[in-house]
Each structure stands twice: as C-alpha cells, then as structure tokens.
C-alpha cells in the first residue's frame, strides 16, 4: 500500500452528509486549526518525553540539539512525517473534495425519518 493511499484512507470521509454549524469556510479553517492544536500537543509531549529521558540519563546537552544536522535517511524519515502531518491537518479539505464527488450522501436526520417508518 502506498503512503498516499494509506493517508487518503485514514482521512476518509464517513458516509453521510456533513453538518456545518458555522459558515462552511470558517468551520473549515476551525477544523484545520484544531488539527494543528492536536499536533502541537503531540510534539510538545514528545519533546517533554525526550527531555525527561535525556535529563535522567545525563546524555545530551541543549547545544547538541540546536546544532543537529540529519543525514539522508533521517531527512527522508523526517520529510515523510511532514507529509503525514500535512494530510492530517488538511483532512477537512480532502473530505470536502470527497463530498463534492458523491451525490448519494444522505443526512443522518433524513435517514432517521426513513428508519423510523
């Protein structure tokens, strides 16, 4: 499975028309912002993990972190992570595109009427 396919499937739109509570564009930006908020938290926790481990082992100094230069493999791994990150943050745009591509979506509210019959 390609990385593109895996990322696309991970961010897939659920079946069902999406409700919008705010102006659709405003809410789109809100969703992006919330994903960034999530990823910032994740990054912050990872840094915290590292700092606590390094501190407990007496291994690194801050200067070594500041001066770090990745080799080719490390650079590739870091770039792949950025690709994953961007698709996560911009998931909502992917889903708007998917919604545009289907005309069979039904709203949960409407299906509820049907199912109650």
């Amino acid at each position: 499975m390609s990385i593109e396919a895996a990322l696309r499937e991970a961010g897939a739109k659920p079946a069902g028309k999406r409700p919008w509570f705010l102006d659709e564009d405003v809410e789109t930006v809100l969703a992006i912002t919330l994903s960034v908020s999530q990823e910032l938290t994740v990054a912050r926790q990872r840094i915290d993990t590292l700092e606590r481990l390094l501190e407990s082992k007496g291994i690194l100094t801050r200067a070594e972190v500041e001066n770090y230069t990745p080799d080719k493999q490390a650079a590739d791994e870091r770039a792949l992570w950025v690709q994953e990150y961007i698709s996560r943050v911009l998931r909502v745009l992917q889903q708007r595109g998917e919604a545009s591509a289907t005309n069979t979506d039904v709203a949960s509210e409407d299906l509820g009427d049907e199912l109650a019959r």
Partner: protein
Amino acid sequence: MEHNSQSSPHVYEGPPDYRVVGRHAVFPETSHDEVERINYLAQMNRFLSTSIVPGVRAAYETEVQPKFQKKHGHGISNRHEARKALLENSIFCFWSAVRRATMEQRQQAGRWTAIRQRERLAEIAKELTNDDDRLELDSEIVIPRYVSGVDHHCMPGSYHSEYFAGDVTNGANYDHAGFVTTAGLLGKYSDGGGKAVVNWVKKNLPDFHPKNILEIGGTVGHSSLPIAEAYPDAQMTVVDVGAPVLRYALARAKSLNVENIRFVQASGEDLSRFPDASFDWIQTTMFLHELSSSALRNIFNETRRLLKPGGIVLHVEQPQYTSNMPIFEQTMRDWDAFYNNEPFWSRMHEIDLTQQMVDAGFDAKNIIHGGVTGVVDKELFPDAAEDESEDFGRKAAWHVIGGKV
C-alpha cells in the same frame, strides 16, 4: 502529596494516560505520537463537556429560551424546538463545530494507526482464527440500510467494510481508539459495560445459571468477554453483521484466553439458524440505537422466540427520554442523532421499550428495569459512578431494560 519545586501544585483529574489500556495479540501497535494524539482527543472531549457545555447551558437559559419565547409567544416545548433554536446560537454552534471536528480527528487518528499495520494485523488474526469453527462468516450477508446508510459515529466504513480478504482494519480502529470517546470510563479492555451487566445479574439473579448465552451486535466482543468469563460453564455466541469486527473479535478473545465464545456473522433480525428456545440469556449492549423501528421490533421478536423458559433478555442503553428529563438534557443527548451519524438515536430514545417488549410477547409483569455504571479498575481508570461530569450520551451510566420468560 509532596511536590518538588517544578511540579504543579494542582491535583490531576481527568482521563488516564492511554498507555494503561490493555493490549492483546491483534491490538494495534501505537507509537509515542499516536498515543499522544489519542490523549489529546480524550482531553479535548473532557474539556468540551466540563468547560464549554456549562456555557452552552447558560446560553440556552439566558439567550435561546427568551428569544424563542419572544418570537413564538410561548416557551420551548420539546427537544426538536430546542435544537432548532440552539442552531441560531453561536456558542452552541461553536461547541458543535469543535465536537464534530474532534470526532473526525479521532477517526483519522485511529484509522491511520490501524491502516499502516493492517497487513500485519490480518496475519495475526489469520493465525489465531484459521480453521477455527468458532468463527462463522457469511459472505452473502446483506448489510442493512441502518448500518450502510451513514457511517455510525462518523467511523468511515463502519463495522462491516473490509479492504482485502481477511481484513480487520475496522475492528482494530474501533477497539483501540474508542478510548477517545469514553476517556477510560470503560476500563482496561473497554469491558466496563459487560462487567457491569455481570455484576447486575449476579446481584439480582443469584440463582441464574445460564448454559447458552447470545449477544446480538457484539462487534469486537468488548461486552461479551466479561460475560463468557463470568460463566465459564456456559457457551457464548456473539452475532454481528460485520466480518472485520468478528474476525478481530475471535482473535482478541483467544489472545485474552477466553475460549467459551464463538462469533457468527448474522443479522439479529433473522436468527433462524438457531431453533426456538436456544438460549438462557440474550444480551445487547449499546446496540438498540443503531437499528431502525422495524429492526428493533424484529430483534425483540427474535429474542422472545429464542429464549428458553426461565431465560432472560437484557438490553443496556443510554437512558430513554421521559417527561422527567429536562428538555435541555434531551436536546444535548440528541446531538449525536443529527451531527454524529446516529440516525436512529433520537427515535429510539423516545420509544416505549416496555410496550415494545410486551408487543414482542413478554409478559408485562416480567419486564425488568435497572441501572448500571461502568465497572473499571479504579486504581487506573475513572469510576463512572463517582464521576460528576456529563458528556450527554457518552457517559458509562446506562439503563437496563429486559424481560424474563
């Protein structure tokens, strides 16, 4: 408690770190960052329910109700009027927008983790379930409209979609990231609901010794395993329409050393493969709200047919809407019906379930009513019975309705 100079003076309250969850052979591996993604979402849900919902309630009381009264000359009389009035309030809309986004982030996070390792998980499931007659799949099954029409709780592909032969992706996603919604209230193996049911039965029916037990809509077996474990002399059967969750379920059960259980792909509406009076106990757990009116009737009829004399059926669900429940609470509980792809949730919670049981052939004097809260390891997980936060419709505090024959 003593603190050093760097630690916070505050006592932490909230979800446990995800790393306390129980793992088994088909549980996906989770990286450091994947864990923190889930931790963040569990905290976000808690923040929304404890810090934002009070503001929504205040807006309802001070802005939405007076505005409605002024416009219509009378107060809000039901949850439908309340919901439509709230949709004109920006605090409600912002809370809703964030809640919806959080649901979608949870699915993306869980799916990514499951998808990136799904070939490996399928291999493990295959090794554990190959040639095991306790897994019966039916490739001809028709997925009912109430499952296929919209993906429940915004879970892409729902319980039934499979992406290749032997796939368990959607079982793995459902299992490992459900923590986001329940914030640990269902315990180490998401089995607090099943444990609660077992405690209820042992306390209220101490002389009940079931030999054959059926759970309908059991998905990956979260609630089924505690029942099978509590009655080791019984044989437990779990039915569900989704192949990926059933495959995952048997592998999970075997890995957790629960052997007296089998998983069958079938709709609860047609259990004609089982003869009349086949079971002593039939269970559903947080299942009825994912049906339709006709499916609910059909399933109630099947449970009546399948029960042995002296047998019981128990349905565990979020509480019904009654005139005793404030309109605001009904409206908030109804949110999932409209905005989290639970299309039958609203109708199901206003149905007179007692009457439905009677219509299915249960004697009115043998209808069972009770209440349970999630049973967890309190050293590590929050106890729903003592948790005062309310995340309308998500808390591990349920009603039990059932019947004896």
